[in-house]
């Protein structure tokens, strides 16, 4: 019962999916103990950040049916907000609050303006306009190098509690030293969980239903008395807000921010792939998609390296399996998912369990 309330009544509705989600949660919680080493911890942290980011994009794309290419802009605003504040004001919690707060305000205002001005037009135009705005913003950020550090980005110190130098106790616990990184990691996981459940609450509220109605048939929704422009703008603003928070989390974890980590168009494409492969229109899809994508990004290359070396004699196959070509395979998977299973992995799993029942 508590679980049902916590998940806002939106249960996984598939035993396999429930197991996968539990495995992801357990994996994230146990990473510092089960997989020692900096890489595993960084991958797990990235999974957390992207779960928030991709879910917030799903709010827009999957639930409201809006294609925006400016999502990384808000992600970047969040990351830069925290980075600039910590860089200028020193490693204090006030700086974190000021940075995240002002970034949030900027994102909300910007998304409101973009939304009100351009959500009246067709999906195609909105996609183009956001693409143009996002590109302009990226140039803008790299031009303001006094604030943003330009192409080099910014490195900064985080509050002492989260820094590697801080130590909770002298004695390691289960072979893991209890330092500030560990605290930062669990803080990140907890924040991710809270933000995710909050988004789940939003999409399963009456407001979320209206968004889905607009996605299915904007004309009918309007006829039923819902101002579609207003609802679309709300959705835009909300999703921008969550993306900003995800950016702030990323900056806090990396203690660095630059255009390539939070603002680049590659990340935008990655998010799009994650949402579609995981499953649009269900937030669980974002969790599965983000986790899968980042695991692939970080570990498939090792596998492909093996395969590529095994195929060293066959010229074309060797190049196709080259570790740097991991995006090729995800791209093909993406195209296939848009055609064959537009509801993504999660939709497939749910359909299977429905067929069984």
């Amino acid at each position, binding site marked *: 019962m508590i679980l049902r309330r916590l998940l806002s009544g939106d249960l996984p509705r598939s035993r396999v999916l429930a197991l996968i989600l539990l495995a992801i949660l357990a994996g994230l919680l146990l990473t510092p103990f089960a997989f020692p080493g900096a890489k595993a911890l960084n991958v797990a942290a990235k999974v957390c950040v992207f779960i928030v980011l991709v879910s917030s994009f799903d709010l827009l794309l999957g639930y409201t*049916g809006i294609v925006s290419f400016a999502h990384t802009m808000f992600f970047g605003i969040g990351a830069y907000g925290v980075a600039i504040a910590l860089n200028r004001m020193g490693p204090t919690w006030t700086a974190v609050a000021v940075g995240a707060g002002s970034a949030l305000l900027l994102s909300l205002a910007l998304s409101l303006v973009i939304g009100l001005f351009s959500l009246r037009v067709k999906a195609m135009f909105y996609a183009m306009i956001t693409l143009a705005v996002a590109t302009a913003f990226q140039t803008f950020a790299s031009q303001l190098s006094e604030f943003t550090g330009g192409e080099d980005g910014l490195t900064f110190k985080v509050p002492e509690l989260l820094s590697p130098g801080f130590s909770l106790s002298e004695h390691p616990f289960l072979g893991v030293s209890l330092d500030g990184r560990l605290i930062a990691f669990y803080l990140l996981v907890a924040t991710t969980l809270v933000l995710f459940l909050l988004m789940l609450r939003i999409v399963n509220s009456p407001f979320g239903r209206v968004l889905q109605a607009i996605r299915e048939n904007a004309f009918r929704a309007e006829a039923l008395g819902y101002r579609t422009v207003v609802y679309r703008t709300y959705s835009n603003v909300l999703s921008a807000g969550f993306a900003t928070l995800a950016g702030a989390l990323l900056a806090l974890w990396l203690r660095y921010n630059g255009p390539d980590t939070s603002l680049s168009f590659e990340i935008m494409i990655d998010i799009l792939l994650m949402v579609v492969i995981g499953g649009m229109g269900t937030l669980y899809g974002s969790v599965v998609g983000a986790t899968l994508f980042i695991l692939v990004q970080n570990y498939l290359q090792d596998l492909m390296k093996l395969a590529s070396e095994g195929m060293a004699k066959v010229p074309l196959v060797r190049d196709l399996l080259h570790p740097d070509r991991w995006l090729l395979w995800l791209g093909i998977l993406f195209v296939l998912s848009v055609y064959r299973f537009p509801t993504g992995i999660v939709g497939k799993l749910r359909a299977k369990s429905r067929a069984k029942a």
Partner: protein
Amino acid sequence: MNAATTSTPALDALPTVRPDRIPLLLLPVLALAAIPLVGSFSTWVTLTFAGLAMGMIIFIIASGLTLVFGLMDVLNFGHGVFITLGAFLATSVLGRMAGWTESESLARNLLAVLPAMAAAMLVAGGVGLAFERLIIRPVYGQPLKQIMITMGGMIVGVELIKVIWGAQAIPLPLPVAFRGSLLFGEAAVEKYRLVSVVVGLAVFAAMFWVLSRTKLGLLIRAGVQDREMVESLGYRIGRLFIGVFVAGSALAGLGGVMWGLYQQTVTPEMGGQINVLLFIVIIIGGMGSVGGCFIGSLLVGLVANYAGFLAPKVALFSNILLMVIVLMWRPEGLYPVGKR
């Protein structure tokens, strides 16, 4: 005299559409306004030619995109991949013919560049055909999926290009005869920019001729205006569309060769970087209008070069600024098309 007056009433009854020439004035006005700002006349000539050359190349690339959108409401976010493809093909062809491109004779240089252009157009057109069949065909009329699928096609295409040519930038030196610049009094005009302007004008003229003087062009224009009406008259707009799509891809391939030579290096990301510029151009032109696209391209090229000289920081946003200004004046672009 009498004959003339008796025949006119029938004509008068038809509402005549007066051609809208105001956007045409934009180019000279902009160019003239830039003279006092730039200050020196010779610099102005150089900048104007650079802008026109850039605009022509952009037009070659964007014309297909705008027609495809006009005909079928298909906006190809993967258009950039054909540019990249064309440019990389040029590196292969010209690389093989290094002896000819390094030769001093213009004829030999041309004999190297023309096959490169032909190869780029052929292959890009062929790939365009496959792209239309495999990627776009199944998602007609579903804009959301279209955006995603063409984006996906672009990702896969760029990765495949990396598989074939590698992920690094490849230098694409200009043939010897195109290097250096011509001096008109004080003003220096790079030879290659002249070439681009000539090729661009040739493409525009050919396109203009096809669209306004042939039956095919009539059908295409009619299809852009009102697709259902053309279909109801018994023409297969689907076939027309494939033809336009293939031609558009081939032109993008040609534009890729020219852009690659303009930049003198070719990277797998170049197509994606131009995409934004293309969208700005076709929005300015009024989605679907070739004439608007032509003016839009030249405007973008000129503004980018003037701004780059006058205020380099602003230059990075000049295109978007230009788009905003044009849209404030004409919210649907310079030449709004049909019912949209």
